[in-house]
């Protein structure tokens, strides 16, 4: 039998349906691969016993010709999604012993569709980071290496690393400022952040609620469509959930883009950006043209203000959301001299440096006397950024940009310089602020042999155009490179 860990999710689901192999077989192959890959530190918690049990149950269904859209497929879940009876840490010490007694809507949807859950994947603490180095459970290592260990990006570093290393067929992730797309770009994988509201936030540990959105990281565009179809959908338990029927995402993949208008925003270039990324962007333009798309030049004049606005809005929402960790109802408690001292010591010891930094920044920008100057100003700039996109949509159907201003960087390189770290998200954060769907597609290797991604951004609720343009890019790029296996 060929190596079952090398299949796409789509091919694996086909093979399961036609009984070419069983869920037990493919799950076992992935468990072995996970155990070999311990050096990547992609998982915080594995759940192999239950995975094998789910696989057996899936095989019973598959034998009868039954089963859901993900039946029997071994997948990974970012450790930000609450999973009933399985520890959910959010990468934080404060939730080190937290075992949810309920299931997030996204994972409940996937379980109803027959997913086999291999375990919970590592991430930046509370999804705050761009390198997976803020995790209390140590950094994730990128399977791609250049003389030294590289970061997989963040915050969904475990998800990206696991999918790139063929230890999961696909993984859930979340994206608040680029946390799906940047790690996808750094690891040669595919990731989509759908329109805000497509995936329910219920049971997903909150960071910045007006920006947080779940999505998949996979090895192909079609795999992302298959997973998103299962993850997404209306949920009355999330008041920002979109109550609209889901389009058929998979059917949108491979659709002709002849006549599609692709916008090239002139502001998406940055001082110090490697020439290779500029060249890859130009190559992407040619690829889409060769598929019949029409290229139009557009301007998104407020792009440079997106990151500073994000670093007001996201910490503000974070400081409010993370107020719940008071050591009383769940999470670690550190006893102090009195109630306030207990709160303060619980939170100081339970949260890591970056999380404390963002809580303090958020508290500051929301505090009396600063609210108008910072928070209100940022929310107005956010309106301007959303308006930029609305104007662009008068001229084009989707935008093509680089995903990130660089390839993966070495572990430890940027961790002590917040602004440099934050700049990783310069091309991704605008889609979060405006609530738009956006996808990163692996497009090429740089001169060091490291993957680089291109990004397609679409109109709100128009994931279909994003999938169509992304699969055109995927077909033209023909990206098949895999990291050389060094981790066994």
């Amino acid at each position, binding site marked *: 039998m060929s190596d079952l860990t090398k299949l796409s999710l789509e091919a694996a689901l086909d093979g399961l349906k036609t009984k070419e192999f069983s869920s037990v077989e493919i799950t076992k192959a992935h468990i072995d691969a996970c155990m070999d890959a311990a050096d990547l530190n992609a998982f915080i918690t594995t759940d192999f016993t239950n995975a094998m049990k789910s696989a057996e149950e899936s095989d019973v269904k598959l034998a009868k010709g039954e089963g859901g859209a993900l039946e029997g497929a071994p997948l990974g879940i970012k450790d930000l999604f609450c999973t009933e009876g399985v520890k959910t840490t959010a990468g934080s010490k404060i939730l080190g012993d937290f075992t949810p007694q309920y299931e997030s809507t996204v994972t409940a949807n996937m379980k109803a569709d027959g997913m086999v859950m291999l375990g919970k994947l590592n991430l930046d603490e509370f999804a705050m980071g761009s390198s997976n180095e803020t995790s209390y459970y140590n950094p994730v290592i990128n399977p791609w290496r250049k003389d030294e260990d590289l970061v997989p990006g963040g915050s969904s570093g475990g998800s990206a690393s696991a999918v790139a290393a063929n230890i999961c067929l696909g993984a859930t992730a979340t994206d608040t400022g680029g946390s799906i797309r940047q790690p996808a770009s750094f690891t040669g994988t595919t990731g989509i952040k759908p329109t805000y509201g497509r995936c329910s936030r219920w049971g997903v540990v909150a960071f910045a609620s007006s920006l947080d959105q779940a999505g998949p990281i996979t090895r192909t565009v079609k795999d992302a469509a298959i997973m998103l179809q299962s993850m997404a959908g209306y949920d009355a338990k999330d008041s920002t959930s979109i109550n609209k029927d889901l389009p058929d995402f998979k059917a949108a993949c491979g659709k002709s883009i002849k006549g599609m208008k692709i916008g090239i925003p002139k502001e998406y270039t940055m001082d110090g950006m490697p020439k290779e990324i500029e060249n890859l962007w130009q190559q992407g333009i040619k690829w889409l043209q060769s598929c019949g798309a029409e290229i139009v030049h557009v301007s998104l004049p407020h792009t440079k203000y997106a990151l500073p606005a994000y670093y007001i809005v996201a910490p503000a929402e974070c400081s409010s959301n993370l107020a719940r960790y008071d050591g009383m109802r*769940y999470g670690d408690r550190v*006893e102090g001299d009195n109630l*306030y001292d207990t709160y303060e010591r619980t939170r100081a010891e339970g949260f890591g440096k970056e999380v*404390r930094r963002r809580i303090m*920044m958020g*508290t*500051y920008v929301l505090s009396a006397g600063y609210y108008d100057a910072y928070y209100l*100003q940022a929310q*107005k700039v956010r309106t*301007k950024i959303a308006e930029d996109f609305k104007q662009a949509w008068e001229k084009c159907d989707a935008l093509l940009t680089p995903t990130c201003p660089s390839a993966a960087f070495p572990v430890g390189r940027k961790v002590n310089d917040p602004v440099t770290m934050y700049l990783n998200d310069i091309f991704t954060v605008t889609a979060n602020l405006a609530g738009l769907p956006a996808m990163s597609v692996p497009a090429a290797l740089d001169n060091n042999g490291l993957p680089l991604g291109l990004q397609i951004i679409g109109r709100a609720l128009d994931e279909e155009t994003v999938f169509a343009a992304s699969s055109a890019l995927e077909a033209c790029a023909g990206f098949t490179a895999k990291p050389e296996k060094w981790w066994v």
Partner: protein
Amino acid sequence: MSTDNTGVTAETVKKIARLSRLHVEPDRLAHLADEMNGLLAWIEQLGEVDVQGVEPMTSAVEMDAPLREDVITDGNVRDKVLYNAPKSEAGYFVVPRSVE
């Protein structure tokens, strides 16, 4: 520097830490002030944007807030609610004394 009256001072950090319910050792205050001033200096560029007459964005999607009947939708899960409590007893959370 943290002594600059126009920026965040050690005293401000102390106040913010208190509001954030985060214990900060006194010898860390000046360093944290410098760090916050560094970030704020970068964020200051937002002031350049002309936002005259612009409404603040409060929702990422254009939709009306959904309404539902004001009825109980779940409950009777006391043990589940208490399951992750750092301390509980006889069906209650146990918390530090807050009223003397």
